[in-house]
């Protein structure tokens, strides 16, 4: 389970400084912010904008354009189920329905107790061993009901 720091303006400014000299620094900065805090706090946007001499709207536009960037912290665990064609062909639909019903949330949501965020992902490149998933940073393939239940039991802790 990832361990994140609480958001702070000082740490944000430090992260920006570490990446500011790159060509096209915005995505590396946003990735670093999310890796540090677990999400990109809206209060970070004007700080980034000021440092890079772009508008707040531009930063906000980028944060909201990409599926990866979170604007609020995720659950303690993140379970991503591949919903793309190869995994569909190998029984992914049934597994997604099973995960939704076991966790009591639809894909794209976090359980009420903040335990787990269930998300769709469109291809992990594990199409030869479909269906696949990613739990936090770990990839899992050849999923079936039994393996999925084991994953769900892991995130229960």
């Amino acid at each position, binding site marked *: 389970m990832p361990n994140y720091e609480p958001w702070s303006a000082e740490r944000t400014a430090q992260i920006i400084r570490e990446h500011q000299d*790159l*060509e*096209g*620094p*915005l*995505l*590396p900065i*946003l*990735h670093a912010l999310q890796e540090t805090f677990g999400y990109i706090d809206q209060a970070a946007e004007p700080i980034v904008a000021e440092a*890079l001499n772009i508008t707040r709207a*531009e930063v906000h*536009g*980028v944060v909201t*354009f*990409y*599926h*990866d*960037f979170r604007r609020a912290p995720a659950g303690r665990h993140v379970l991503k189920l591949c919903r*793309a*064609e*190869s*995994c*569909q*062909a*190998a029984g992914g639909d049934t597994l997604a329905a099973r995960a939704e019903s076991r966790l009591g949330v639809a894909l794209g949501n976090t359980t009420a107790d903040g335990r787990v965020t269930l998300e769709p*992902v*469109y*291809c*992990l*490149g*594990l*199409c*030869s*061993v*479909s269906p*696949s998933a*990613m739990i936090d*940073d770990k*990839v*899992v*393939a*050849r999923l079936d009901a039994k393996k999925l239940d084991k994953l769900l039991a892991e995130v229960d802790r």
Partner: protein
Amino acid sequence: MSALRVYIPCDAAAVACGADEIATALASSAARRKIAVEVVRNGSRGMHWLEPMLEVATDGGRVAYGPVELSDVESVLDAMIAGGGEHKLRVGVPEDHPFLKKQTRLTFARCGIVDPRSLDDYKAHDGYKGLAKALANPGGIVEEVTQSGLRGRGGAGFPTGIKWRTVAQTSAPQKYIVCNADEGDSGTFADRMIMEGDPFVLIEGMTIAAIAVGATKGYVYIRSEYPHAAATLDAAVAAARRGGLLGKRIGDSSFAFDMEVRVGAGAYVCGEETSLLDSLEGKRGLVRAKPPLPAHKGLFGLPTVINNVLSFASVPIIMDRGGAFYRDFGMGKSRGTMPIQLAGNIKYAGLYETAFGLSLGELIDDIGGGTRSGRPVRAVQVGGPLGAYFPRALFDTPFDYEAFAAREGLIGHGGIVVFDDTVDMAKQARFAMEFCAIESCGKCTPCRIGSTRGVEVIDRIVADDNRAANLALLEDLCHTLKFGSLCALGGFTPYPVMSALTHFPEDFGATPRLQAAE
């Protein structure tokens, strides 16, 4: 006695099937037995149904075992200690396996064989021979690549040599080499395998491109869903830099080139080259109108070669063996080899590199062994989420850019996803529209709005709501998407939709009673 050399793949497909846990278990078992074992984390050979596939070095070559589970580790280690001995999971010498034996591995020559993080191992397996030839005659690189007939392996199939020539002939204070490693198509994993199994071949290919066109800086834009590939590539870039093969004087020549790995953020559309460039610049990944071509105004408005991983990875062997050598493989205007990816519901899933020209049926039935579920193959999607669905009736189509185009399909990045007879093709068509709606960058109206309307129209057709009129509407909508979008996301979404409708009309609510009524 020298240490037992064991190979355990670090390829994400093997890791997802437990390779890391197996590596740990094997090491601790060896320690308990007081046996010296040297574990090499190699890439994958591409026989993914056998992953995790472990290999042991013996006097008679490497001997493989797979698919190994945690409970097999002790007995597999026994067999390995016996010198590649018998075991129920023994595959034998991998090169003798029919799946590998019949392939022509040019781009994937080293994948699964070498230690992907070892520059020495790469060099020991013909690595950097292409660069040596390129440095000996820098002015001849573009001609050699043009002669090879290599076409962009990302999907568009544009001749690589022509792209490079354009950049070479454009003068600018700074030029860039950008590698598109945003391999988002479902059913494809060849780029990932190269980056995890033989990353130096990509670095070498990009370096040759840089020398050819006069670029000094390169970027690999890799999708965030590929953390293992990014880590391996990062390590390889650092090793190449230490070895003097990236930096101010490439291989002690006067050429300078260095590169960085950049990670995307989960936008499928960034696999489109102009959208990728915007994303690298730190913007929303919006598609750009062409012209100007990236070759003239690419990254930061400067001349840029942007190619797929496989295109760059094919260049070292072209330079080493010559354009004519590469060109001799293939058919028609599709020259060389294509790493084909067999995925979905297929028995022998994995990577199959072969010269262009095999028929779809040979690939799926003979090589792939049909479905994993054992049920009949009903449909296959070739070329990712924007590729057409083909029925069995089209299985005689040869794997070739033009042959697929002639049948309203595309080979794209070479992925084949197999579906058995339980598939609902209306659902697949609906998903194609839904995916386009989720991933549209929003620049073109037909893609941004048409995809959402497309989902609704398909729902109405399936519900038998004004069926004939809605079928006509869907066709018209697809026409608008195809001709009214700037990039392939909106432009090609009609392929899966229309092919599903054309080849599988019975799935769109056309029950026998309705057919009679119409």
